[in-house]
């Protein structure tokens, strides 16, 4: 938005637009994904962002309807990365942390998963289910990657902790692992990112936590 004096010149494109044009993404979904990635990286300061794609079903609509567990026609891009702070803590987990004197800063960072979407894009329960069905696979992939990049990153920093705290933390991780199966502290979750691209859209990205199944809301 520099040159307003000469009416003939158009304002120069934004960095993200340039980025998308440069890469020449084939599908609009991927362009959306790039935009969300950009937003995560530069506005929310996420790190180690990785992407994945759930391939679409290149079949006719008849067979699509037959099997509800099949993913939809369109490919769905996924993103994953480390936010600088925890984005979500289940109310019961929060209570546990409070009771055991565990602060968020004591915990190792947690990978979050993101579905980039945009206004007007086709979306159904089938899409949502496909994302959650694919999530374990993607998770495994990124965890392998994380181990490869930094083998120690998965361990909590044990050096400068007093033994009592370390014990509490160990208990916490234990409990966390168990709750993954019992779903006590919530089920699989992703962030739904929606880019405002509609008429007059300003590129704002809204983020919503989506849980699989019924997960009680936070109360704060």
């Amino acid at each position: 938005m520099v040159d307003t004096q000469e009416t003939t010149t158009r304002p120069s494109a934004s960095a993200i637009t340039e980025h998308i044009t440069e890469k020449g993404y084939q599908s609009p979904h991927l362009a959306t994904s790039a935009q969300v990635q950009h937003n995560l990286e530069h506005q929310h300061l996420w790190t180690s962002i990785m992407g994945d794609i759930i391939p679409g079903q290149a079949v006719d609509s008849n067979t699509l309807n037959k099997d509800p567990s099949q993913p939809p026609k369109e490919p769905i891009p996924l993103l994953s990365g480390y936010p600088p702070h925890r984005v979500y803590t289940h109310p019961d987990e929060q209570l546990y942390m409070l009771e055991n004197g565990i602060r968020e800063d004591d915990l190792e960072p947690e990978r979050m998963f993101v579905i980039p979407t945009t206004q007007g894009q086709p979306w159904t329960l089938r899409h949502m289910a496909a994302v959650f069905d694919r999530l374990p696979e993607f998770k495994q992939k990124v965890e392998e990657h994380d181990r490869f990049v930094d083998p120690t990153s998965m361990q909590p920093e044990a050096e400068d902790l007093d033994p009592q705290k370390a014990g509490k933390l160990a208990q916490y991780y234990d409990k966390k692992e168990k709750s993954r199966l019992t779903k006590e502290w919530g089920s699989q979750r992703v962030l739904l990112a929606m880019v405002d691209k509609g008429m007059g859209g300003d590129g704002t990205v809204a983020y919503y936590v989506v849980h699989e199944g019924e997960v009680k809301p936070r109360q704060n």
Partner: protein
Amino acid sequence: MADVDEDAIKAPANASTEPDVDLSDETQDFRFLNHLNFFADASPGIPRRGEKDFEPNPTELQADVLSASRGAMHNALSYPRLHNTKTRVVAFYAPDGYVPPVKTDRATPKTGGEDEKSSESTPKPPRPLPNSARISPDACVYVPNPKGQFFKTMGQADSLSRVWLLPEEALYLIERGNGLAHLGPPAGPGEEDLSVPMSLQAAYACFMGHGGLTLERYSVYTGLKRLGYALLRAPGWCDDLVKEDADASYATETTPPTLHGPGLAGILGSLFNWIHDPRSTASTATGPIIGTGIHRNYMDIYRKLAIIPWYDPITAPERHPADTTPPFRVVFHVFKPSTPFKKSAPPTPDFRVAVVSTRDQTTMPTMTQLGALLESTPLDPPARGENGPLRHGYRNVVMAVVDQGVVSYLRVADSAFGKEKLYENKGGPQGPKWNRNQKPRKR
């Protein structure tokens, strides 16, 4: 974008909800009714809102409280509908409706003081029975001895001074414990009275569905009656309403409305403006919109910039209710408790209400349906100097949306944005000041 306004959404949740809670929004804890003395003569106040928990826990305390709440609810709902001998209003169910008495015996004029005093002195006409003419064909319950406040706003008397009630009126009286209705006619002299009083269930079974009464309409009717409003059926009550040519009050309004363009007044107005300011170039096709003349104030400029035609509700003709599509049609005329109400000559309604059932109508009204609904109501322009003329609008209607017994009221008004020219406001342009993030505070 975790900025200020988003945080603001969460923060005021506690603060702002407190003063303005609609108690009927949520299921209330019936334990609070225990504190009321049901038999007290003074009308009891409404109990305070109770605290609720976030989620069940295995404590016994919680279980006890819940069981106490359920017990209280059980007791409150078990409370019977009683009729003391003194205040009892006895009614009779007549499923076939009002049948005018056979006028074989002209010699015995019914001298009951049933209506306005006038007719007694003038013996010439064969008694047109002014009141019974107002008895709706849907009326199906009559009260031989009407007494009490309710009949000020309900029912219509026949020549025998019996008040005939519409099904919703009768049901309301029975339900609130003020009317005792008998199935079947009263016993004749010397007969054994074996007519059984109607249970609440019988009353619903008999009256619901009678004469166009739906449960949704009834929910709206009683909900407003309980708050003290008076209600009358509007002409649009019948779904298969047809336009009667003879209907004088709507005779003139048959021309289709022009929904687009400024209307005649608007055209005249712009013509006038054009004459008023001859220096301007009328054609915008070649030159700048505001012309090349000298402009001494912003008003002229804004006026010229207003090139988009707008809808003027004043120019739209009033339409017959038959032009509307049910359920987007006014079925109740509603009068505030403070409005002086006379059954024989009802005043102008304070509200016009359309009733929509969410299970029968699952989509929003179209613009055509909404437009017709609004235009079936009379012009009700905002008063001069009114604070929010846009909010008040030029026509308005209340939509009562009923979702399985839960009623939400929405007021729809025909706002004339084109008529509220911001640039004509006193104090001139106030852009930057007005756009500050603090909103003008309402009282």
